């Protein structure tokens, strides 16, 4: 998943960036609200983590502006004070959950996972589509009850497509799930990866859930729950 991290403290930003990247997410990390507004305008994010105590434009104001602009991605708030006044203000401004500093990373991961599942309409940590199921916590796919061996990139693509099932997903959006930077990358990589996923899934009685929509992108046709 592609996450936007807004934290002014460089060490904490670096730490969260590293740990979240290790968890298989693509992270854009910025130090203030102005940069965050700019990034959110330039790219699509699946979730944002916002520190409330930002210098200049506050985290609260940033959330309000995003919601006013119609941005619907879930927002996890980090707050130092942890008073109910702050939590209620943050949630009322448009945040979806809060974490009080200092936090355990496992808890951040759990909250992130819950928010991402909720955003894509799933309440359980497992997404099921026919014979295929995806354990979001363990990042493990299972086909007909047997573990499916996927590379990290393949898993990311499959998870993204399943989260956005029955929607056409542009190649560019899938590229953003793989590479954090805006650099030039060969778009054929996506075709190669999708081809490999298809072959691994077809093992189960010709299971073909991924369609190519010419000129637009890919469509996960199977209904996920």
């Amino acid at each position: 998943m592609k996450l936007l991290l807004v934290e002014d403290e460089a060490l904490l930003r670096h730490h969260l960036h590293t740990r979240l990247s290790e968890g298989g997410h693509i992270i854009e990390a910025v130090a203030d609200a102005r940069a965050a507004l700019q990034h959110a305008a330039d790219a699509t994010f699946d979730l944002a983590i916002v520190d409330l105590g930002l210098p200049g434009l506050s985290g609260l104001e940033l959330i309000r502006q995003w919601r006013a602009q119609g941005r619907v991605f879930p927002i996890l708030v980090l707050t130092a004070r942890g008073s109910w006044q702050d939590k209620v203000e943050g949630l009322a401004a448009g945040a979806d959950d809060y974490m009080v500093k200092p936090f355990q990373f496992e808890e951040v991961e759990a909250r992130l996972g819950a928010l991402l599942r909720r955003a894509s309409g799933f309440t359980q940590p497992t997404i099921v589509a026919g014979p295929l199921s995806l354990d979001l916590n363990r990042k493990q796919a299972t086909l007909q009850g047997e573990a499916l061996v996927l590379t990290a990139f393949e898993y990311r693509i499959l998870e993204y497509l399943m989260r956005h099932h029955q929607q056409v997903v542009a190649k560019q959006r899938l590229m953003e799930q793989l590479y954090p930077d805006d650099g030039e990358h060969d778009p054929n990589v996506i075709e190669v990866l999708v081809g490999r996923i298809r072959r691994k899934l077809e093992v189960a009685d010709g299971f073909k859930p991924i369609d190519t929509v010419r000129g637009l992108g890919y469509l996960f046709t199977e209904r996920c729950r």
Partner: protein
Amino acid sequence: MIRSLRFRLMLAGALLAVLFMLGLLPALQGAFSLALRESVEERLATELTTLVSAARLQNGQLEMPVPMPDERFEVPAERSLSYVFDRQGALLWHSPGSPLPEYSPQYDGQGNRFSRFTARDGEAYWVYDVEVKLLGGQRAAFSFVAMQSVEPYQRTLGALRDRLYLGFGAALLTLLVLFWAGMTWSLRSLRRLSHELDEIEAGQREGLSEHHPSELLRLTRSLNRLLASEGEQRQRYRDSLGDLAHSLKTPLSVLQGIGETLAGRAAQGEEGKHASILRGQVARMSQQIDYQLQRANVRHGGLVRRQVQVRPVLDSLAASLRKVYPGKPVNLHIVLAPPGLLPIEEGALMELLGNLLENAWRLCLEDISVSLSVIGQRLELLLEDDGPGIAPEQRGRILQRGERLDRQHPGQGIGLAMAQDIIRSYQGTLAIEDSPLGGARFRISFAKV
């Protein structure tokens, strides 16, 4: 000790007026009595002049005309009694109806004398005694005496005293009523000041107005300065606490992260043990900071005693909790006795209810009930749920700082201790009981304002 300023002033005014009148009364009475006595003397003298001019000396003997030239001497009356004595004191003549006098004049050549004489029967008289030498003969010297009972004089004096008392009483009453009215008018400004202070305490007003008498302006301006500086100080205090929290807890988050990384790399051995100590200490420091900062933040305010509507606070907390726990459908029943106010600052109430409600939200099956009722002079807030409840032996311990009975749930361990601190700082009480819903019931009670 008389506490009312108005009563004190009234008492002082009434005392002053009574003392003034008590001093004035004898002086007035004395002056009137003197004037009355002089008028009696004057009348008796006039009568005697008439009598002397009517008297004739015939062969050395006194002769009084019959009838007398002035009918006053013919009518038996109590008002004036007239007598003529010779120089030896023998009665020669008396006006008709006059009883025989016990008075005997002393002819001593001294002339006129006005005096008071008391008869044996106790009756008192004014006596005017004139020594007259008719035609200059030594042998023709007489004492002409006019007498009048003192009783009418005393009656007049008594009537005057009665009128004086009545008049002074009425004057005192009028004076007190006027004094009361004047004081009400003067003290109205103090009442207005007290009313404005009530409004400040209730949080409806920021400072005192400028419409006060000049004698009070210095006081009201000083109070306004004090209020403003207290408000600024509180705001600065809150801002500093916020900054302090941010500047302490962000590095702690970094340390926590480093601890986790170290623990991940060296799960076994000495390094793993150090990493675990580091994480434990960070968690402890963080909890202490949370507790002390929040405690300082929700301390009881100075002059301003706000009353807060409980309903909006509960609604915003419930909206937040529904967002944070989306997978848990909770029925929140709220029954608040009108006007639904609690005498506590909004931030403190939000902290108090937030901590208790989140606990209930996490632990309940599906029902939470919050009710506010007025019991005599106290306001009672009940917060209960249908969760597992709290065993009686754990109730005392659970309110201690940092205690957590539900370590399997995420959250901070200072919530209940914070709630208890807030309740204490507003002179309230907290009790944990069994709820009829099946879970725990928190009974919070505050004195009514």
